[in-house]
């Protein structure tokens, strides 16, 4: 894939700035979705955690993340094999020192990535809901935003070895991921799986025979509202990513926006029908998840495919999501918000969809499969290992009593809905 242009045309720059500034809405939407999927006794904890994790993610990325990620064409550490230099980590300065924060593409990349890493941080929070201690989630997010995410982003977007596959190994155009289906969503989804494994399921999720039960969220309105807000953020995220990481002109924003709308809508309607046929009535929470999975899946190819191809990508997402959520449950993983299916599986599908639907040079599928293999064979073990180590130092799961009382009381000392949860006898006599 072409490297990001280091100088943008004035019009492209202005449009890209607008898109970058929309990106935080994606994280906001996911935070609201996570809160809606939590029970009343953990709702305040969920939204406060989201707020703080955004801050932790941005700071970790600012301090060390950007130095690791770097940018295409920038300084990087490399190793030489068979006469070729392979970049494996960025060599920028910590604290973003000496970064020209002007009208350059590099400044926009730094800004977009600081927002994108906050989006990625929201994903594990969804799967670890109602049992993930506040301090542990902050520490885990710092590791994700300060090391795991930037390293993988360097490999795909920062001129690293996956991006170099096209030039050095003559494998297609190298890994392509315009809007972050792999870099943002799948990395977040894989980390969510690692977090869910380390934390274990919520009490009451599985019966003694290991059969999963449903624990419905407390506010479906929040979930749907979060989807709508996230959609606006996604338009900015995918458009800015396409300009900065795929090297397309700003005129392609219309195509990106249309593809996002078509893919998400197709996924939503498909899931609505599939769940309606399967359960007798449509399942609203799965339908909402399908909408987000449609956005996730089309992110990788958003700047290169026709709306018809985007519809096909969304169709697959809409068919897969109802079964995927069930499979994850049956595999013994408690994924409170469906983040592993939506972002993990959706992101991987988005990466592979590039190979299927984009008219690429021969061998592109190899680069896309290599990206998926890196997600499963590198990001997942590293993320799991870091979270296990963290768990040894600072227990990540809340105590049994804390889980019973709810995360709001256990960690914050105040409920989101105090009138719904009388926890002391004093309350009864007032």
């Amino acid at each position, binding site marked *: 894939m072409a490297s990001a242009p280091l100088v943008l045309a004035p019009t492209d720059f202005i449009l890209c700035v607008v898109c970058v500034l929309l990106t935080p809405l994606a994280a906001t939407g996911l935070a609201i979705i996570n809160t809606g999927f939590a029970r009343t006794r953990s709702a305040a904890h969920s939204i406060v955690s989201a707020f703080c994790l955004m801050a932790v993610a941005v700071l970790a990325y600012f301090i060390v993340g950007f130095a690791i990620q770097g940018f295409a064409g920038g300084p990087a550490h490399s190793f030489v*094999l*068979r006469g*070729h230099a*392979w970049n494996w980590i960025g060599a920028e300065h910590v604290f973003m020192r000496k970064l020209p924060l002007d009208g350059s593409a590099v400044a926009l990349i730094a800004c977009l990535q600081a927002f994108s890493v906050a989006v990625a941080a929201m994903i594990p929070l969804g799967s670890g809901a109602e049992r993930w201690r506040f301090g542990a989630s902050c520490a885990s997010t710092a590791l994700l935003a300060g090391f795991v995410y930037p390293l993988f982003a360097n490999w795909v977007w920062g001129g690293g*070895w996956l991006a170099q*596959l096209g030039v*050095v*190994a*003559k*494998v297609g155009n190298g890994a392509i991921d315009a809007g972050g289906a792999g870099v943002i969503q799948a990395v977040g989804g894989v980390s969510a799986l690692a977090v869910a*494994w380390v*934390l*274990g*399921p919520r*009490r009451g999720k*599985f019966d003694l025979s*290991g059969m999963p039960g449903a624990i419905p969220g407390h506010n479906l309105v929040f979930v749907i509202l979060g989807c709508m807000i996230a959609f606006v953020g996604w338009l900015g995220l995918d458009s800015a990513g396409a300009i900065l990481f795929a090297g397309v002109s700003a005129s392609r924003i219309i195509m990106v926006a249309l593809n996002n709308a078509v893919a998400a809508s197709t996924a939503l309607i498909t899931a609505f029908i599939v769940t309606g046929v399967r359960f007798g009535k449509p399942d609203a929470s799965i339908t909402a998840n399908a909408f987000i999975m449609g956005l996730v899946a089309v992110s990788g190819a958003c700047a290169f495919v026709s709306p018809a191809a985007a519809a096909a990508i969304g169709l697959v997402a809409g068919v897969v999501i109802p079964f995927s959520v069930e499979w994850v449950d049956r*595999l*013994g*993983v408690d994924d409170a918000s469906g983040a592993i299916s939506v972002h993990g599986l959706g992101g991987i599908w988005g990466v592979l969809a590039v190979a299927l639907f984009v008219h690429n040079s021969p*061998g592109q599928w*190899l680069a896309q*499969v*290599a990206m*998926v*293999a*890196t997600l*499963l*064979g*590198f990001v*997942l*073990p590293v993320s*799991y*290992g870091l979270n296990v180590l963290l768990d040894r130092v600072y227990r990540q*799961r809340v105590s*049994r009593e804390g889980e019973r009382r709810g995360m709001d009381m256990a960690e914050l000392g105040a409920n989101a809905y105090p009138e719904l949860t009388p926890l002391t006898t004093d309350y009864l006599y007032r």
Partner: protein
Amino acid sequence: MKLVGFLLLVAGFAIVFSAFTLLAAVRAQSIFVLAGTVVELIGLGMVFRAQHLAPPAEER
């Protein structure tokens, strides 16, 4: 079983990485990439199975 699963995941990645950095022929690269991915899928299955059989977190 969980450790073996994770080792297979890493081994699969190493096979895929080696395919591009050490091999030149596209056919050989394709075979290695597919083989590495299959190894990873087996590893992922083993980790899922091991995790499913593990005691609940509160009993650790």
